């Protein structure tokens, strides 16, 4: 099926070309996010702990003859090969090895507290500090406004300029 000249010019117009470029760029970006099987294995593996008692991550456990590592890894590989989602694989691991197999708390129930607490504490402390500093700044005792003579003002400005020129900084050199 051939395109008419009008249709061809529509596809070749500047807006159309920009739109095509945008679509290609989005497609490239999305394709960069697509992971292969080994990357998925590493991603899931990083979220799991070896349950042999070594307290290391599943991918990090290097014990000779570790009784658990291979079993856990096989289950992850089988899950990926079987087309399971990451979450389904992790649920299966929890079902078999218990909640300790997960390297981090989940985002449900009491576990959520583990995630919220650090940010909540930091946010409260940050807001409190800003509030405190603003309050201090507002209630800072002000110097009495004593009128300066023209000579004093010139001397003051000259001194400031000299300090600025000699130190080239407003800090404490």
């Amino acid at each position, binding site marked *: 099926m051939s395109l008419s000249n009008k249709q061809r010019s529509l596809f070749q117009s500047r807006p159309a070309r920009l739109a095509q470029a945008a679509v290609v760029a989005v497609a490239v970006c999305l394709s960069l996010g697509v992971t292969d099987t080994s990357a998925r294995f590493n991603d899931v593996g990083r979220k799991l702990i070896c349950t042999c008692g070594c307290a290391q991550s599943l991918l990090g456990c290097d014990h000779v003859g570790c009784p658990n590592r291979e079993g856990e890894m096989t289950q992850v590989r089988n899950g990926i090969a079987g087309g399971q989602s990451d979450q389904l694989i992790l649920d299966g691991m929890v079902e078999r090895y218990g909640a300790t197999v997960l390297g981090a708390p989940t985002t449900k129930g009491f576990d959520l507290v583990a995630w919220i607490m650090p940010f909540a504490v930091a946010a409260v402390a940050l807001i409190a*500090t800003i509030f405190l500093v603003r309050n201090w700044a507002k209630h800072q005792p002000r110097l009495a406004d004593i009128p300066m003579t023209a000579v004093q003002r010139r001397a003051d400005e000259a001194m400031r300029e000299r300090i600025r020129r000699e130190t080239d900084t407003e800090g404490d050199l």
Partner: protein
Amino acid sequence: MAAFGSFALLIGLALAAYNLFAGGIALRLLAVGGPARVSPERLAETARRAGIAGFVAVTAAAFALIWSVFHNDFSIEYIVEHSNIALPTPYKFAALWSGQEGSLLLWAWLLAAYGFVLRLTHKTDVKLHAYAGTILAGVQVFFLLLLNFAAPPFALVRGGIAPEDGNGLNPLLQYPEMVIHPPMLYLGYVGFTIPFAFALGALMMRYPGEKWIHITRRWTMMTWLFLTVGVFLGMHWAYAVLGWGGYWGWDPVENASLMPWLTGTAFLHSVMMQEKRGMMKQWNVWLIFATFMLSILGTLLTRAGLVSSVHAFAQSSIGPWFVTFLVIIMAVCLFTYILQRDHLKSEHRVESLVSRESSFLFNNLVLLAACFTILWGTLFPVLSEYVEGTKKTVSGAYYSHVAIPIGVFLLLLTGVGPLLAWRASSFRSLRRNFILPGIAFLVTAIVCIAVGLRPWADEGVFYSLITFSLAAAVATAISSEFLRGAGVIHRQTGKNYLSSMILLIRRSTRRYGGYIVHLGLVVIFIGFAGYAFNRSVEKPMGFGDTLDIGPYTLKNLGNTQESNPNYDTEFSQLDVYENGKKILDQPMAPEKRVYAASGQPQTMVANHSTMRWDLYVVYEGRDQATGLPLIKAFLNPLVMWIWAGLMVVVFGTLVAMVPSLSPARAVATVPLPDPGTLASRTPAVIGSGD
């Protein structure tokens, strides 16, 4: 020797107890005044001398244990558990801190050594040193009680019959760093007792002014340096020995060392505000209290087995002792604070949100937020077990989400803080100081994306990009501070830029030493950012087999087994080629050892390290299917930057500890305003400003 050691510990306890009680009574008498049967000054002096003698006693005990290790005295239980005849000499020293009792003895000895120096330098301020020495004696009494009654290092073997050989040192500890990492860490932990004792003492006696901070400044910095080096040596040990390709596993014991480091760092910054502007006195006192308590908490976590850890070798049942001690310390600190709170009123307050003072406040905030996050993550398994009945695991997967953003923010403040002026910064100075770092940030981000970093594809890459960009900005900011200062001196003195920069640093060692430390941290953060790009390959390798990773090809020259009295070893010899060209004269030889005394296996990693990346090769054991050695190779970018950054931090801290050049002084005679009231002319001393 066991009897000698036990006796020395007992005498050490008696002397420390005398130091505590006699010192306490003397200080009380001095405080209330009035007539007394004994002279409080003389009583305090006897207490001080008891403290000095205590050091001799504890040194004798430590010597007795080392002597026993070197003479294979297997009548002592501790020597049986932590040494054997074939143990190489350096590791015989390491046996001192490889177990519970020995490491407590090391702690007590270091505490006594710090106390010895403190008591010898008492003339700086006799009364303040008397307070600090007495508080220190209290801490010494606790550790010596432990050593005498809860964890005696000289306990004899059960049954009284000494075996012919010991069980040997834990294989994990048979690595060069282990000879130096624990003492460094302990020097850090124990060292924070000194500023703690001075802070508490100064508060108890309502010490006027900030002199106690000047007295303890070098103590604190040296302690901080020891802790920093100890933490990084621990990282290097984990990297080289544990064989999982990383250097920080967010293990509870690693976390325990990081927490006092964070609060200690916060203290080092905020104490400057107290020195310069008489601010944040209450905050500083609590920071140093918290740092000391976190050091004790770290020991509790290591010893009590509250949480699962790779440091499980050090666990025992002395947890309740540490909990009790922590409660007592907390109570004493709280009581003293409530009683003397009015003494800690600030002389000034922060005047602007955009000032050096507020940057210190935010820096403290971020450091403490990091400390809280780590403490929270470390203790969450215990909390979840209490609430839900299930012990949840909190590992790197958690910390990479919560701690890394805080770390990145901290890196930002590392650069922003030095650019702000005291009291308030004008918009003009902000624009002038931030324009170059801002450009450096943007250019680095664009270059990183141009060379292939895809921050939208992976969270780790996103943080790496931010870190690289911030590192460039902070490095630019700090460098411009150096160049600006050197430029002023160059214009004033006509010296060349290098000499001007050296003079600049010598004139204000503390300030520019601090900037060098910040630069070191930037380098370290660059090293951390490389972690997002780690990759690994695993393969069973027979003779002649090859394994490709990045630009490298490993070729197996053969697999060998050897034995010596200490261990049996299996290793592969691997030639390394980069883009087809052989790059190493000697082949890499990752090995797996099995120690004779304990029968435990241990990995010995082979590592080829460059500034760009580490080729890190592990002999994992035999592949069950093929029977061939299983070789795992990692390509870890930028790891060497971490160790290089540490060197810069060490250098910067040492610079900051050197006294600054004093401005030259000249005597000038000035006429008095009213000659009639005074008959003579008075000389006045003025600084010439060098």
